[in-house]
Protein backbone atom coordinates (compact mmCIF):
# COMPACT_ATOMS: atom_id res chain seq x y z
CA UNK A 1 0.00 0.00 0.00
CA UNK A 2 1.09 3.52 -0.68
CA UNK A 3 2.75 4.67 2.56
CA UNK A 4 1.13 8.09 2.47
CA UNK A 5 -2.27 6.55 2.02
CA UNK A 6 -1.56 4.11 4.85
CA UNK A 7 -0.49 6.95 7.08
CA UNK A 8 -3.64 8.91 6.33
CA UNK A 9 -5.76 5.82 6.88
CA UNK A 10 -4.21 4.91 10.21
CA UNK A 11 -4.34 8.42 11.61
CA UNK A 12 -7.83 8.91 10.23
CA UNK A 13 -9.00 5.77 11.98
CA UNK A 14 -7.35 6.91 15.20
CA UNK A 15 -9.10 10.25 15.00
CA UNK A 16 -12.40 8.52 14.32
CA UNK A 17 -11.96 6.16 17.28
CA UNK A 18 -11.00 9.05 19.52
CA UNK A 19 -14.13 10.92 18.52
CA UNK A 20 -16.25 7.92 19.40
CA UNK A 21 -14.46 7.59 22.74
CA UNK A 22 -14.66 11.24 23.68
CA UNK A 23 -17.91 12.41 22.12
CA UNK A 24 -20.19 11.13 24.90
CA UNK A 25 -17.99 12.77 27.52
CA UNK A 26 -17.79 16.10 25.71
CA UNK A 27 -21.50 16.03 25.00
CA UNK A 28 -22.18 15.36 28.67
CA UNK A 29 -20.19 18.46 29.55
CA UNK A 30 -21.98 20.57 26.99
CA UNK A 31 -25.49 19.45 27.92
CA UNK A 32 -24.78 20.05 31.59
CA UNK A 33 -24.69 23.78 30.81
CA UNK A 34 -27.96 23.80 28.91
CA UNK A 35 -31.13 25.14 30.52
CA UNK A 36 -33.76 22.50 31.43
CA UNK A 37 -35.27 21.09 28.25
CA UNK A 38 -32.50 22.61 26.13
CA UNK A 39 -31.21 19.24 24.94
CA UNK A 40 -34.64 18.01 23.88
CA UNK A 41 -34.66 19.52 20.43
CA UNK A 42 -34.11 18.41 16.87
CA UNK A 43 -31.47 18.38 15.64
CA UNK A 44 -29.86 17.58 19.01
CA UNK A 45 -27.88 20.70 19.91
CA UNK A 46 -24.12 20.36 20.25
CA UNK A 47 -23.50 23.46 22.31
CA UNK A 48 -25.77 25.33 24.70
CA UNK A 49 -27.30 28.46 23.20
CA UNK A 50 -27.06 30.21 26.52
CA UNK A 51 -24.72 28.49 28.92
CA UNK A 52 -26.13 28.30 32.43
CA UNK A 53 -24.94 26.99 35.76
CA UNK A 54 -28.49 26.41 36.95
CA UNK A 55 -28.21 22.62 36.77
CA UNK A 56 -25.20 22.63 39.05
CA UNK A 57 -26.91 25.03 41.39
CA UNK A 58 -29.96 22.79 41.49
CA UNK A 59 -27.77 19.74 42.15
CA UNK A 60 -25.83 21.26 45.00
CA UNK A 61 -28.59 23.30 46.59
CA UNK A 62 -31.57 20.96 46.27
CA UNK A 63 -30.45 17.50 45.26
CA UNK A 64 -27.86 17.06 48.00
CA UNK A 65 -24.99 16.51 45.59
CA UNK A 66 -22.46 18.20 47.87
CA UNK A 67 -23.20 15.61 50.51
CA UNK A 68 -22.71 12.77 48.03
CA UNK A 69 -19.49 14.34 46.82
CA UNK A 70 -18.13 14.59 50.35
CA UNK A 71 -19.23 11.03 51.10
CA UNK A 72 -17.49 9.77 48.00
CA UNK A 73 -14.32 11.63 48.89
CA UNK A 74 -14.39 10.36 52.46
CA UNK A 75 -15.12 6.75 51.60
CA UNK A 76 -12.69 6.56 48.69
CA UNK A 77 -9.89 8.23 50.67
CA UNK A 78 -10.39 5.96 53.65
CA UNK A 79 -10.39 2.86 51.48
CA UNK A 80 -7.29 4.08 49.66
CA UNK A 81 -5.29 4.81 52.80
CA UNK A 82 -6.28 1.66 54.67
CA UNK A 83 -5.99 -0.75 51.78
CA UNK A 84 -2.67 0.79 50.85
CA UNK A 85 -1.29 0.17 54.32
CA UNK A 86 -2.61 -3.39 54.58
CA UNK A 87 -1.76 -4.43 51.03
CA UNK A 88 1.74 -3.03 51.25
CA UNK A 89 2.50 -4.92 54.42
CA UNK A 90 1.07 -8.16 53.13
CA UNK A 91 2.57 -7.86 49.66
CA UNK A 92 5.99 -7.16 51.13
CA UNK A 93 5.70 -10.11 53.46
CA UNK A 94 4.82 -12.42 50.58
CA UNK A 95 7.73 -11.12 48.53
CA UNK A 96 10.53 -10.80 51.04
CA UNK A 97 9.82 -12.46 54.38
CA UNK A 98 10.27 -16.18 54.64
CA UNK A 99 7.70 -18.20 56.53
CA UNK A 100 6.25 -21.65 56.41
CA UNK A 101 3.50 -22.11 53.86
CA UNK A 102 4.18 -18.83 52.08
CA UNK A 103 3.78 -20.10 48.53
CA UNK A 104 0.74 -22.18 49.33
CA UNK A 105 -0.98 -19.30 51.07
CA UNK A 106 -0.23 -16.97 48.22
CA UNK A 107 -1.55 -19.44 45.69
CA UNK A 108 -4.71 -19.84 47.74
CA UNK A 109 -5.19 -16.07 47.65
CA UNK A 110 -4.72 -15.96 43.88
CA UNK A 111 -7.12 -18.85 43.57
CA UNK A 112 -9.71 -16.85 45.48
CA UNK A 113 -9.67 -14.34 42.63
CA UNK A 114 -11.91 -16.61 40.61
CA UNK A 115 -14.72 -16.21 43.14
CA UNK A 116 -16.80 -13.24 42.10
CA UNK A 117 -17.21 -10.72 44.90
CA UNK A 118 -20.98 -10.91 44.57
CA UNK A 119 -21.01 -14.41 46.04
CA UNK A 120 -19.93 -12.93 49.34
CA UNK A 121 -22.29 -9.97 49.29
CA UNK A 122 -25.43 -11.52 50.76
CA UNK A 123 -23.82 -13.02 53.88
CA UNK A 124 -21.57 -9.98 54.15
CA UNK A 125 -24.66 -7.87 54.50
CA UNK A 126 -25.93 -10.13 57.29
CA UNK A 127 -22.51 -10.03 58.94
CA UNK A 128 -22.41 -6.24 58.87
CA UNK A 129 -25.99 -6.15 60.12
CA UNK A 130 -24.82 -8.23 63.06
CA UNK A 131 -21.85 -5.92 63.74
CA UNK A 132 -24.11 -2.90 63.25
CA UNK A 133 -22.34 -1.41 60.27
CA UNK A 134 -25.19 -1.41 57.77
CA UNK A 135 -25.89 2.10 56.53
CA UNK A 136 -22.61 3.57 57.74
CA UNK A 137 -19.46 4.68 56.00
CA UNK A 138 -17.63 1.86 57.71
CA UNK A 139 -19.96 -0.62 56.03
CA UNK A 140 -18.58 0.46 52.67
CA UNK A 141 -14.98 0.88 53.79
CA UNK A 142 -14.32 -2.22 55.85
CA UNK A 143 -14.70 -4.88 53.13
CA UNK A 144 -12.40 -2.87 50.86
CA UNK A 145 -9.55 -2.57 53.33
CA UNK A 146 -7.50 -5.28 51.65
CA UNK A 147 -7.60 -6.70 48.15
CA UNK A 148 -5.97 -9.75 46.64
CA UNK A 149 -5.17 -7.72 43.57
CA UNK A 150 -3.36 -5.10 45.65
CA UNK A 151 -1.34 -7.68 47.54
CA UNK A 152 -0.44 -9.33 44.26
CA UNK A 153 0.63 -6.02 42.73
CA UNK A 154 2.86 -5.12 45.68
CA UNK A 155 4.39 -8.58 45.77
CA UNK A 156 5.27 -8.45 42.08
CA UNK A 157 6.99 -5.13 42.57
CA UNK A 158 8.64 -5.84 45.90
CA UNK A 159 10.30 -8.97 44.56
CA UNK A 160 12.66 -6.60 42.75
CA UNK A 161 14.09 -5.33 46.03
CA UNK A 162 17.58 -6.86 46.46
CA UNK A 163 17.76 -9.20 49.45
CA UNK A 164 21.26 -7.93 50.27
CA UNK A 165 19.83 -4.55 51.14
CA UNK A 166 17.51 -6.06 53.73
CA UNK A 167 20.15 -8.44 55.07
CA UNK A 168 22.58 -5.59 55.50
CA UNK A 169 20.03 -3.67 57.50
CA UNK A 170 19.32 -6.70 59.66
CA UNK A 171 23.00 -7.15 60.35
CA UNK A 172 23.10 -3.50 61.38
CA UNK A 173 20.50 -4.39 63.97
CA UNK A 174 17.44 -2.80 62.40
CA UNK A 175 14.10 -4.33 63.37
CA UNK A 176 11.73 -5.64 60.74
CA UNK A 177 9.36 -2.76 61.18
CA UNK A 178 12.11 -0.20 60.79
CA UNK A 179 13.39 -1.98 57.71
CA UNK A 180 9.92 -1.81 56.28
CA UNK A 181 9.38 1.83 57.11
CA UNK A 182 12.82 3.18 56.27
CA UNK A 183 14.16 0.96 53.51
CA UNK A 184 11.28 -0.83 51.84
CA UNK A 185 8.65 1.91 51.77
CA UNK A 186 10.82 4.43 49.89
CA UNK A 187 11.63 1.74 47.33
CA UNK A 188 7.95 0.89 46.94
CA UNK A 189 6.92 4.48 46.32
CA UNK A 190 6.09 4.04 42.61
CA UNK A 191 3.86 1.05 43.27
CA UNK A 192 2.28 2.89 46.20
CA UNK A 193 1.23 5.69 43.89
CA UNK A 194 -0.08 3.20 41.37
CA UNK A 195 -1.97 1.22 43.94
CA UNK A 196 -3.37 4.36 45.51
CA UNK A 197 -4.80 5.51 42.19
CA UNK A 198 -6.21 2.07 41.49
CA UNK A 199 -7.85 1.83 44.88
CA UNK A 200 -9.21 5.33 44.73
CA UNK A 201 -10.70 4.88 41.27
CA UNK A 202 -12.17 1.50 42.14
CA UNK A 203 -13.68 2.82 45.37
CA UNK A 204 -15.03 5.92 43.67
CA UNK A 205 -16.66 3.97 40.87
CA UNK A 206 -17.92 1.09 42.99
CA UNK A 207 -21.65 0.65 42.69
CA UNK A 208 -23.19 -2.62 43.72
CA UNK A 209 -21.92 -2.90 47.27
CA UNK A 210 -22.62 0.69 48.37
CA UNK A 211 -26.03 0.36 46.73
CA UNK A 212 -26.76 -2.59 48.98
CA UNK A 213 -25.27 -1.48 52.25
CA UNK A 214 -26.24 2.19 52.25
CA UNK A 215 -29.92 2.71 52.97
CA UNK A 216 -29.94 6.34 54.03
CA UNK A 217 -29.52 9.22 51.63
CA UNK A 218 -27.12 10.92 54.01
CA UNK A 219 -24.52 8.22 53.35
CA UNK A 220 -24.94 7.87 49.59
CA UNK A 221 -21.84 8.04 47.47
CA UNK A 222 -21.98 9.83 44.11
CA UNK A 223 -22.83 6.80 41.93
CA UNK A 224 -25.65 5.78 44.27
CA UNK A 225 -26.93 9.32 44.52
CA UNK A 226 -26.79 9.70 40.76
CA UNK A 227 -28.56 6.40 40.13
CA UNK A 228 -31.26 7.40 42.57
CA UNK A 229 -31.64 10.81 40.92
CA UNK A 230 -31.70 9.17 37.50
CA UNK A 231 -34.67 7.08 38.53
CA UNK A 232 -36.54 10.06 39.97
CA UNK A 233 -35.66 12.67 37.37
CA UNK A 234 -35.33 10.56 34.24
CA UNK A 235 -36.76 13.34 32.11
CA UNK A 236 -34.39 16.08 33.32
CA UNK A 237 -31.54 15.16 31.03
CA UNK A 238 -29.60 18.39 31.61
CA UNK A 239 -29.66 17.95 35.37
CA UNK A 240 -28.54 14.33 35.02
CA UNK A 241 -25.67 15.35 32.78
CA UNK A 242 -24.49 17.86 35.35
CA UNK A 243 -24.64 15.06 37.93
CA UNK A 244 -22.63 12.83 35.62
CA UNK A 245 -20.03 15.56 35.22
CA UNK A 246 -19.66 15.93 38.97
CA UNK A 247 -19.28 12.16 39.29
CA UNK A 248 -16.86 11.62 36.45
CA UNK A 249 -14.70 14.72 36.50
CA UNK A 250 -12.70 14.06 39.70
CA UNK A 251 -11.58 10.60 38.61
CA UNK A 252 -10.93 11.72 35.08
CA UNK A 253 -8.69 14.54 36.29
CA UNK A 254 -6.93 12.22 38.70
CA UNK A 255 -6.27 9.83 35.86
CA UNK A 256 -5.00 12.54 33.55
CA UNK A 257 -2.62 13.82 36.19
CA UNK A 258 -1.29 10.39 37.14
CA UNK A 259 -1.80 8.30 34.03
CA UNK A 260 1.81 7.14 33.82
CA UNK A 261 1.55 5.38 37.17
CA UNK A 262 -1.88 4.04 36.44
CA UNK A 263 -1.01 2.48 33.10
CA UNK A 264 2.20 0.99 34.54
CA UNK A 265 0.27 -0.63 37.32
CA UNK A 266 -2.28 -1.96 34.88
CA UNK A 267 0.49 -3.72 32.96
CA UNK A 268 2.23 -4.94 36.09
CA UNK A 269 -0.99 -6.41 37.34
CA UNK A 270 -1.85 -8.28 34.20
CA UNK A 271 0.93 -9.00 31.72
CA UNK A 272 3.54 -10.11 34.17
CA UNK A 273 0.96 -12.18 35.99
Amino acid at each position, binding site marked *: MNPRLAKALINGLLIGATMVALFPLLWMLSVSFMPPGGASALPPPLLPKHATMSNYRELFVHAGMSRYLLNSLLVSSAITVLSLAFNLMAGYAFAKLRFAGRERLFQALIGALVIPAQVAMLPLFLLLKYIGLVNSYAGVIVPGMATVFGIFLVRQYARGIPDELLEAARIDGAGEWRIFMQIVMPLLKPIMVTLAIFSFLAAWNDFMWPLIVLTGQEHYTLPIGLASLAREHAQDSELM*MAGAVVTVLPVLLLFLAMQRYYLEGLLLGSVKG
Partner: protein
Amino acid sequence: MNPQRAAWLFLAPALLVLGVFFLLPVIAALVLSLTDYDLYALANIHNLRFVALQNYWALLQRPLFWSALGHTVYFVAVGVPLSMGASLGAALLLNSPLAKCKPFFRTALFAPVVTTVVATAVIWRYLFNTKYGWMNYALNALGIHPVDWLGDPHWAMPTIILFAVWKNFGYNMIIFLAGLQAIPLDLYEAARIDGASSWRQFRHITWPMLGPTLLMVGILTVSGYFQLFAEPYVMTEGGPLQSTTSVLYLMYDEGFKWWNLGSASAVAFLLFIIMFAVTVLMLKLSRRGEHPDGAPA
Protein backbone atom coordinates in the same frame (compact mmCIF):
# COMPACT_ATOMS: atom_id res chain seq x y z
CA MET B 1 15.03 -13.64 65.89
CA ASN B 2 11.75 -14.90 64.67
CA PRO B 3 11.13 -13.90 61.06
CA GLN B 4 8.04 -16.10 60.92
CA ARG B 5 6.38 -14.00 63.52
CA ALA B 6 7.28 -10.77 61.81
CA ALA B 7 5.89 -12.08 58.55
CA TRP B 8 2.61 -13.11 60.14
CA LEU B 9 2.26 -9.75 61.82
CA PHE B 10 2.75 -8.04 58.49
CA LEU B 11 0.17 -10.31 56.94
CA ALA B 12 -2.33 -10.19 59.78
CA PRO B 13 -4.34 -7.08 58.92
CA ALA B 14 -4.85 -7.99 55.28
CA LEU B 15 -5.57 -11.65 56.00
CA LEU B 16 -7.97 -10.68 58.75
CA VAL B 17 -9.91 -8.39 56.45
CA LEU B 18 -9.96 -10.92 53.61
CA GLY B 19 -10.83 -13.75 55.96
CA VAL B 20 -13.63 -12.05 57.82
CA PHE B 21 -15.11 -10.00 55.00
CA PHE B 22 -14.55 -12.31 52.06
CA LEU B 23 -13.71 -15.91 52.89
CA LEU B 24 -16.18 -16.24 55.75
CA PRO B 25 -19.05 -14.75 53.72
CA VAL B 26 -18.26 -17.03 50.80
CA ILE B 27 -18.52 -20.08 53.03
CA ALA B 28 -21.63 -18.65 54.62
CA ALA B 29 -23.10 -18.12 51.16
CA LEU B 30 -22.68 -21.79 50.43
CA VAL B 31 -24.49 -22.66 53.66
CA LEU B 32 -27.14 -20.01 53.02
CA SER B 33 -27.83 -21.42 49.58
CA LEU B 34 -28.85 -24.68 51.24
CA THR B 35 -31.49 -22.95 53.38
CA ASP B 36 -34.71 -21.15 52.60
CA TYR B 37 -33.66 -17.89 54.25
CA ASP B 38 -36.43 -15.45 53.30
CA LEU B 39 -38.64 -12.72 54.67
CA TYR B 40 -40.07 -15.05 57.32
CA ALA B 41 -36.60 -16.07 58.45
CA LEU B 42 -35.61 -12.44 58.58
CA ALA B 43 -38.55 -11.86 60.90
CA ASN B 44 -37.71 -14.86 63.03
CA ILE B 45 -34.72 -17.11 62.60
CA HIS B 46 -36.79 -20.12 63.70
CA ASN B 47 -38.50 -19.91 60.36
CA LEU B 48 -35.28 -21.00 58.69
CA ARG B 49 -35.27 -24.45 57.16
CA PHE B 50 -32.51 -26.55 55.70
CA VAL B 51 -33.59 -27.43 52.21
CA ALA B 52 -30.46 -29.09 50.78
CA LEU B 53 -30.29 -28.50 47.03
CA GLN B 54 -33.89 -27.40 46.61
CA ASN B 55 -32.96 -23.79 45.83
CA TYR B 56 -30.74 -24.96 43.01
CA TRP B 57 -33.35 -27.35 41.76
CA ALA B 58 -36.06 -24.70 41.84
CA LEU B 59 -33.83 -22.24 40.03
CA LEU B 60 -33.09 -24.70 37.26
CA GLN B 61 -36.83 -25.00 36.74
CA ARG B 62 -37.46 -21.27 36.72
CA PRO B 63 -37.82 -19.68 33.30
CA LEU B 64 -36.56 -16.37 34.70
CA PHE B 65 -33.23 -17.92 35.70
CA TRP B 66 -32.73 -19.37 32.26
CA SER B 67 -33.67 -16.16 30.53
CA ALA B 68 -31.34 -14.21 32.83
CA LEU B 69 -28.58 -16.69 32.04
CA GLY B 70 -29.44 -16.41 28.36
CA HIS B 71 -29.15 -12.63 28.47
CA THR B 72 -25.85 -12.84 30.32
CA VAL B 73 -24.43 -15.38 27.87
CA TYR B 74 -25.64 -13.18 25.01
CA PHE B 75 -23.85 -10.23 26.59
CA VAL B 76 -20.66 -12.25 27.04
CA ALA B 77 -20.72 -14.02 23.69
CA VAL B 78 -21.29 -10.86 21.67
CA GLY B 79 -19.70 -8.32 23.98
CA VAL B 80 -16.36 -10.02 24.64
CA PRO B 81 -15.33 -10.60 20.99
CA LEU B 82 -16.50 -7.10 20.05
CA SER B 83 -14.72 -5.59 23.00
CA MET B 84 -11.49 -7.48 22.38
CA GLY B 85 -11.69 -6.78 18.66
CA ALA B 86 -11.99 -3.07 19.35
CA SER B 87 -9.11 -3.25 21.83
CA LEU B 88 -6.87 -5.12 19.42
CA GLY B 89 -7.76 -2.82 16.54
CA ALA B 90 -7.00 0.27 18.58
CA ALA B 91 -3.76 -1.26 19.86
CA LEU B 92 -2.63 -2.15 16.33
CA LEU B 93 -3.34 1.38 15.17
CA LEU B 94 -1.47 2.85 18.12
CA ASN B 95 1.44 0.49 17.55
CA SER B 96 1.80 1.41 13.93
CA PRO B 97 5.00 3.35 13.26
CA LEU B 98 2.91 5.61 11.03
CA ALA B 99 0.59 6.82 13.84
CA LYS B 100 1.12 10.34 15.13
CA CYS B 101 0.51 11.92 18.55
CA LYS B 102 0.42 8.47 20.14
CA PRO B 103 0.30 9.61 23.79
CA PHE B 104 -2.71 11.80 23.08
CA PHE B 105 -4.62 9.07 21.28
CA ARG B 106 -3.72 6.56 23.94
CA THR B 107 -5.02 8.76 26.72
CA ALA B 108 -8.17 9.72 24.84
CA LEU B 109 -9.04 6.14 23.98
CA PHE B 110 -8.42 5.06 27.55
CA ALA B 111 -10.50 7.83 29.14
CA PRO B 112 -13.85 5.95 29.16
CA VAL B 113 -12.28 3.20 31.28
CA VAL B 114 -11.75 5.38 34.32
CA THR B 115 -15.22 6.93 34.21
CA THR B 116 -18.03 5.82 36.49
CA VAL B 117 -20.39 3.28 34.95
CA VAL B 118 -23.46 4.92 36.45
CA ALA B 119 -22.57 8.35 35.10
CA THR B 120 -21.71 7.19 31.61
CA ALA B 121 -24.76 4.93 31.51
CA VAL B 122 -26.82 8.05 32.14
CA ILE B 123 -25.12 9.70 29.18
CA TRP B 124 -25.79 6.74 26.94
CA ARG B 125 -29.38 6.66 27.95
CA TYR B 126 -29.74 10.07 26.35
CA LEU B 127 -27.52 9.39 23.37
CA PHE B 128 -29.83 6.49 22.59
CA ASN B 129 -33.03 8.32 23.38
CA THR B 130 -35.59 7.41 20.74
CA LYS B 131 -36.64 10.94 19.99
CA TYR B 132 -33.84 13.36 20.81
CA GLY B 133 -30.84 11.06 20.88
CA TRP B 134 -27.85 11.53 18.60
CA MET B 135 -27.88 7.90 17.57
CA ASN B 136 -31.29 8.05 15.95
CA TYR B 137 -30.54 11.47 14.55
CA ALA B 138 -27.47 10.06 12.82
CA LEU B 139 -29.42 7.03 11.57
CA ASN B 140 -32.13 9.31 10.30
CA ALA B 141 -29.55 11.29 8.34
CA LEU B 142 -28.56 8.00 6.70
CA GLY B 143 -32.18 7.31 5.91
CA ILE B 144 -32.61 4.56 8.50
CA HIS B 145 -35.75 4.39 10.60
CA PRO B 146 -35.35 5.41 14.25
CA VAL B 147 -34.84 2.52 16.64
CA ASP B 148 -36.31 2.39 20.14
CA TRP B 149 -32.92 1.42 21.52
CA LEU B 150 -33.64 0.92 25.19
CA GLY B 151 -37.39 0.40 24.90
CA ASP B 152 -37.44 -2.44 22.43
CA PRO B 153 -36.67 -5.84 23.95
CA HIS B 154 -34.65 -6.77 20.87
CA TRP B 155 -32.49 -3.68 20.94
CA ALA B 156 -31.93 -3.07 24.64
CA MET B 157 -29.20 -5.69 25.02
CA PRO B 158 -27.30 -4.65 21.87
CA THR B 159 -27.37 -1.09 23.18
CA ILE B 160 -25.94 -2.21 26.49
CA ILE B 161 -23.28 -4.23 24.66
CA LEU B 162 -22.27 -1.18 22.63
CA PHE B 163 -22.04 0.78 25.85
CA ALA B 164 -19.87 -1.88 27.50
CA VAL B 165 -17.54 -2.03 24.51
CA TRP B 166 -17.15 1.73 24.50
CA LYS B 167 -16.56 1.80 28.23
CA ASN B 168 -14.08 -1.09 28.44
CA PHE B 169 -12.07 -1.46 25.23
CA GLY B 170 -9.34 0.95 26.41
CA TYR B 171 -8.28 -1.34 29.23
CA ASN B 172 -7.39 -4.30 27.06
CA MET B 173 -6.01 -1.94 24.45
CA ILE B 174 -3.21 -0.97 26.84
CA ILE B 175 -2.42 -4.60 27.56
CA PHE B 176 -2.42 -5.52 23.88
CA LEU B 177 -0.25 -2.53 23.13
CA ALA B 178 2.34 -3.73 25.61
CA GLY B 179 2.10 -7.20 24.11
CA LEU B 180 2.63 -5.83 20.61
CA GLN B 181 5.60 -3.78 21.71
CA ALA B 182 7.20 -6.89 23.15
CA ILE B 183 7.28 -8.62 19.75
CA PRO B 184 10.83 -8.40 18.36
CA LEU B 185 10.94 -6.11 15.36
CA ASP B 186 13.37 -8.30 13.44
CA LEU B 187 10.62 -10.89 12.98
CA TYR B 188 8.71 -8.34 10.89
CA GLU B 189 11.93 -7.30 9.18
CA ALA B 190 12.55 -10.86 8.05
CA ALA B 191 8.96 -11.27 6.89
CA ARG B 192 9.14 -8.08 4.89
CA ILE B 193 12.28 -9.30 3.14
CA ASP B 194 10.37 -12.46 2.25
CA GLY B 195 7.72 -10.20 0.75
CA ALA B 196 4.93 -11.06 3.22
CA SER B 197 1.89 -8.79 3.08
CA SER B 198 0.68 -6.87 6.18
CA TRP B 199 -2.10 -9.37 6.59
CA ARG B 200 0.27 -12.33 6.46
CA GLN B 201 2.57 -10.59 8.92
CA PHE B 202 -0.37 -10.17 11.27
CA ARG B 203 -1.57 -13.72 10.75
CA HIS B 204 1.79 -15.44 11.22
CA ILE B 205 3.72 -13.16 13.54
CA THR B 206 1.47 -10.82 15.51
CA TRP B 207 -1.37 -13.23 16.22
CA PRO B 208 0.74 -16.20 17.46
CA MET B 209 3.06 -13.93 19.43
CA LEU B 210 0.07 -12.33 21.12
CA GLY B 211 -1.44 -15.73 21.88
CA PRO B 212 -0.79 -15.91 25.63
CA THR B 213 -1.86 -12.29 26.11
CA LEU B 214 -5.04 -12.91 24.15
CA LEU B 215 -5.89 -15.90 26.27
CA MET B 216 -5.32 -14.09 29.54
CA VAL B 217 -7.22 -11.01 28.41
CA GLY B 218 -9.99 -13.23 27.11
CA ILE B 219 -10.41 -15.04 30.40
CA LEU B 220 -10.37 -11.83 32.42
CA THR B 221 -12.82 -10.11 30.10
CA VAL B 222 -15.20 -13.06 30.05
CA SER B 223 -15.32 -13.24 33.82
CA GLY B 224 -15.77 -9.49 34.02
CA TYR B 225 -18.62 -9.52 31.52
CA PHE B 226 -20.38 -12.33 33.34
CA GLN B 227 -20.78 -9.90 36.23
CA LEU B 228 -23.11 -7.59 34.33
CA PHE B 229 -25.19 -5.53 36.71
CA ALA B 230 -24.75 -1.75 36.89
CA GLU B 231 -25.43 -1.15 33.19
CA PRO B 232 -28.93 -2.65 33.13
CA TYR B 233 -29.63 -1.32 36.62
CA VAL B 234 -29.16 2.25 35.45
CA MET B 235 -30.11 2.05 31.79
CA THR B 236 -33.13 -0.26 31.71
CA GLU B 237 -33.85 -1.52 35.23
CA GLY B 238 -33.64 -5.01 33.76
CA GLY B 239 -36.40 -4.37 31.27
CA PRO B 240 -38.07 -4.03 28.83
CA LEU B 241 -39.87 -7.30 29.37
CA GLN B 242 -36.92 -8.42 31.51
CA SER B 243 -34.83 -8.56 28.35
CA THR B 244 -31.77 -7.14 30.11
CA THR B 245 -32.13 -8.95 33.41
CA SER B 246 -28.72 -10.54 33.95
CA VAL B 247 -27.87 -13.29 36.40
CA LEU B 248 -26.48 -10.79 38.89
CA TYR B 249 -29.52 -8.59 38.44
CA LEU B 250 -31.64 -11.59 39.29
CA MET B 251 -29.48 -12.24 42.35
CA TYR B 252 -29.86 -8.64 43.45
CA ASP B 253 -33.64 -8.65 42.99
CA GLU B 254 -34.04 -12.05 44.55
CA GLY B 255 -31.79 -11.17 47.47
CA PHE B 256 -32.42 -7.57 48.32
CA LYS B 257 -35.75 -6.80 46.73
CA TRP B 258 -37.57 -9.93 47.87
CA TRP B 259 -35.16 -11.07 50.57
CA ASN B 260 -34.94 -14.64 49.38
CA LEU B 261 -31.34 -14.85 50.48
CA GLY B 262 -31.23 -18.63 50.19
CA SER B 263 -32.31 -18.65 46.60
CA ALA B 264 -30.18 -15.58 45.81
CA SER B 265 -27.09 -17.30 47.20
CA ALA B 266 -27.85 -20.25 44.98
CA VAL B 267 -27.96 -17.87 42.03
CA ALA B 268 -24.56 -16.49 43.01
CA PHE B 269 -23.06 -19.96 43.28
CA LEU B 270 -24.52 -21.11 40.00
CA LEU B 271 -22.97 -18.05 38.38
CA PHE B 272 -19.66 -18.90 40.01
CA ILE B 273 -19.80 -22.47 38.78
CA ILE B 274 -20.64 -21.35 35.26
CA MET B 275 -17.82 -18.80 35.22
CA PHE B 276 -15.41 -21.38 36.53
CA ALA B 277 -16.45 -23.92 33.91
CA VAL B 278 -16.12 -21.39 31.11
CA THR B 279 -12.63 -20.43 32.28
CA VAL B 280 -11.51 -24.05 32.42
CA LEU B 281 -13.02 -24.64 29.01
CA MET B 282 -11.16 -21.67 27.56
CA LEU B 283 -7.87 -22.91 28.99
CA LYS B 284 -8.51 -26.39 27.61
CA LEU B 285 -9.41 -25.13 24.16
CA SER B 286 -6.37 -22.89 24.02
CA ARG B 287 -4.13 -25.81 24.93
CA ARG B 288 -5.62 -27.90 22.18
CA GLY B 289 -5.03 -24.99 19.81
CA GLU B 290 -1.36 -25.03 20.71
CA HIS B 291 -1.08 -28.71 19.97
CA PRO B 292 0.96 -29.32 16.79
CA ASP B 293 -1.74 -31.56 15.27
CA GLY B 294 -4.27 -28.79 15.48
CA ALA B 295 -1.86 -26.16 14.23
CA PRO B 296 -3.77 -23.40 12.50
CA ALA B 297 -3.40 -23.22 8.75
